[in-house]
């Protein structure tokens, strides 16, 4: 794992992608910092940071796009996959290298609250927590990006795919407000999810009986719940899907100074899920 990690990290800075990412993020945040904190005298660095999310949307796909797609195109994955190293370790090595690159600007950000402090009142606790969450959000985005990169041979598609997904997640609140909140729509949503899961099982196992049973059981269960207690379905879509507005956990801190611990758990579990999915995606390709 260490070998992969070291190679990836070195390659990020040799290929300039890492440098560009770090420089871009710091320069952008620096401009915000100057405008909000220094010129306007607003004492929260966290607010400045919330403006930098947009750099993540553009910059993180840049870091993740080549992680697996390039290996696959250049056939260097043959070296990794035939070496006596577990696939999980290879994926983790690469992921940790990305995380390290994302950590570098965040470590530098830690200086900014001190500058504010030197000028007068500062709120270091909120600021540092928000830097921590900002970093964690970056890690979530990187996990998503790595997964997309493992699905394709093309770096461009990996970039655009990741960027698109991150952008949709960023605009999620606005999209969500258009969803209906009635109990029937909630039921429809559940049925769609059950069908998607059944379809996925069918694709993975080629077992029509199994997926049929899952579909039938899901539909019956959903209908029973609907007839027994339809109020459960009210606002279900907005509540469930609302969790996907990942940046909310971070913006809660930056705009309201509210730290949502379950949000941190959500971040960590999303990272775990996408790292796992990346391993699975690569495994599956070897078998198809």
């Amino acid at each position, binding site marked *: 794992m*260490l*070998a*992969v990690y*070291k*190679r990836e990290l*070195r*390659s990020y800075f*040799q*290929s300039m992608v890492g440098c560009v990412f770090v420089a871009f993020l710091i320069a952008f945040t620096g401009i915000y910092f100057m405008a909000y904190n220094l010129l306007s005298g607003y004492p929260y660095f966290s607010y400045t940071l919330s403006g930098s999310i947009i750099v993540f949307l553009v910059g993180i796909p840049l870091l993740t796009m080549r992680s697996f797609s390039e290996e696959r195109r*250049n*056939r*260097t*994955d*043959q*070296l*990794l*996959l*035939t*070496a*006596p*190293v*577990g696939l999980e370790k290879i994926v983790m090595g690469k992921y940790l290298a990305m995380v390290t690159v994302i950590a570098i600007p965040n470590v530098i950000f830690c200086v900014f609250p001190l500058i504010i402090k030197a000028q007068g009142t500062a709120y270091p606790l909120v600021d540092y927590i928000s830097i921590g969450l900002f970093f964690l959000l970056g890690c979530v985005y990187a996990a998503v990006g790595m997964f997309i990169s493992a699905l394709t041979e093309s770096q461009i598609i990996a970039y655009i795919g990741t960027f698109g997904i991150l952008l949709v997640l960023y605009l999620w609140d606005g999209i969500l407000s258009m969803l209906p909140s009635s109990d029937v729509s909630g039921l429809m949503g559940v049925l769609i999810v059950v069908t998607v899961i059944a379809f996925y099982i069918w694709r993975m196992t080629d077992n029509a009986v199994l997926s049929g049973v899952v579909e039938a059981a899901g539909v019956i269960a959903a209908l029973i719940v609907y007839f027994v207690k339809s109020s459960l379905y009210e606002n279900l879509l907005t509540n469930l899907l609302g969790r996907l507005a990942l940046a909310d956990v971070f913006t809660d801190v930056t705009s309201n100074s509210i730290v949502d611990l379950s949000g941190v758990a959500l971040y960590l579990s999303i990272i775990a899920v996408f790292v796992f999915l990346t391993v699975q995606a690569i495994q599956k390709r*070897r*078998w198809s």
Partner: protein
Amino acid sequence: MIEVKNLVKKYGNHLAVDHLDFTIEPGRIYGFLGPNGAGKSTTMNIMTGYLGATEGEVVIGGHDILKEPEKAKRCIGYLPEQPPLYMDMTVREYLEFAAELKEIPRRKRADQVTEVEKMVRIRDVEKRLIRNLSKGYRQRVGLAQAILGYPEIIILDEPSVGLDPKQIIEIRQLIRSLAKKHTVILSSHILAEVREVCDYILIISKGKLVASDTPENLERMLGESGTVELETKASPAEVREILKNVPGIEEITAKAEENGITRAQIMEKKGEDVRERVSLAFADRRKPLLTLRTAGATLEDVFMELTQSEQLPDAFTRHMEQAAGTEADRKKREDQAAAVDMENIDRAVGDDRNGEGDEQDAGSL
């Protein structure tokens, strides 16, 4: 050492590897021979754990590649068809990375990388970026990577593709020297290479193993009743006249060449060797015999026969019966041979190093 049992690989409806069974014993050089697209690379990719098989199992040094992948992979060094090189690294960096990946202990790593660099002669380019190296050097870096860690088995997929003749000779020498300590498996679609380098040949066609034996035995399979070729200073009519009463001859074809020389081919009856009688017959008539030699079936014939025919067993028996056959059959084989890309340069090199091979090639093709 390696056991491959009932290996099947399907890509959608396409059967790339079709129930392959073989065993690799230690200390030999094995050659996978087959036309392009026969399933050689796929088989190697499955053996090294890069691809999963649809059915069947691969056991390496007692470890199943699926159940204990890390232990099994530790026994193998692999050079894929396209060397897996990182263009943004220098040769030294790359080899050190590969050494670390193969879990060579830190204190041995630098020494071993240097040793391997010397072995494949890339020490003078170790500080250069791989991106800037020529194809031949890249191939050698890939080979160095496969040797690192000195695994028991070294698997090389088309190791000499894209190299110039001198490099090909060097790489073959290297492969032979590797075989002293390692088991080497290489794949190739070039006969001369396999015949020259390998101790044992597995011929694969359309995903099936169609023959496996030593090169000599494979040639013998087809060469039981052979053809004798001769050149003489006599007219074709005289040749027929001289040979009319020589026993053991099935058929004669003779053709006048320039300078009054006639080139003739004599089909022997099964189990006969007519050379002695032929030379005496010419001597009796005081006609000078310029050359006289057996043109047995070569590996090329075996290869063509096994990989081109739709129904292998039938074709094979037919060939045995006809034993090099009539002129028409011969013509057909020539056409088939011409249709296959044999990489002439490579053959020339191979044959330069093997005078006998040269003669045989000339005889059969």
